[in-house]
């Protein structure tokens, strides 16, 4: 299935969960939040959140600013 991860097109195995994506993508998920199609997915729900074709995933963290 094809998704958009932080603005970039990506191919993922069908049935991948948000937790699997984050594990593959990042060394640590400390200080990270995820939104799918503009809706925040709480950390506790990552493991059960099945991604589907065409979704837009945003992964954010804190950087210098303000």
């Amino acid at each position, binding site marked *: 299935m094809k998704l958009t991860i932080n603005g970039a097109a990506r191919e993922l195995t069908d049935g991948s969960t948000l937790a699997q994506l984050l594990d593959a993508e*990042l060394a640590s998920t400390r200080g990270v*939040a995820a939104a799918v199609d503009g809706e925040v997915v709480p950390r506790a729900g990552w493991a059960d959140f099945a991604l589907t074709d065409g979704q837009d995933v*945003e992964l954010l963290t*804190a*950087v*210098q*600013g*303000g």
Partner: protein
Amino acid sequence: MADDPFVVADVELSSRLIMGTGGAPSMQVVDEVVAASGTAMCTVAMRRVSPGTTGSILDVLGRRGVRLLPNTAGCRTAQEAVRTAQLAREALETDWIKLEVVADEHTLLPDGVELLDAAETLVAQGFTVLPYTNDDPVLARRLQQAGCAAVMPLGSPIGTGLGICNPHNIELIVAEARVPVILDAGVGTASDAALAMELGCDGVLLATSVTRAQQPATMAAAMAAAVNAGRLAHRAGRIPKRHHAQASSPTEGMAVL
């Protein structure tokens, strides 16, 4: 100061100087300015993760034990700002948010309509909202009525270093505020921070004037001293301004020479 606590949303902060971390050339400089400023709370922005990035701002601030104040910098609509705040709460486990909704990239001035809309939504969702706002006493009043935990008027546009362009408006905001007033944006040098405190602000939030100074840590120390000096002067009560001189030495007892 023990007899003059700075309290925001029932949390006492040990410094009236809140530091932004934007603009610093390295994490090392962030660390130095946080230490030199004595700040108890620092802002961070929320951006897309970059895989492979080492050395998080969260590590630096965590080691210094400062409170995090995530912001919604870059957001142009209430919806964007609300979603960014929700992500920040999830990522950083704080419901405090520096709410920024700017109108355009040229002025970075707050969009009052979107700002108030976002503030109302976030307050209803249980956030502790600290809005970056215009130096507009009426908008500040509306934000306070919406349940914001502080109001943070600009002295002048972000990053300009123009100081406090409308001190009269800042005084008006202070005069009717029942929540802390924190001057946010426009500070160029220490006297601007001192003036903010002399006008009655409860705190100052600044970044660029320190992080882009030639010697950031030295400027951070200057800002800390200025905020303290301004606060003391405000509490001490300045003399009224006069049009004519008033001798401070006795006028009686002058010799005839």
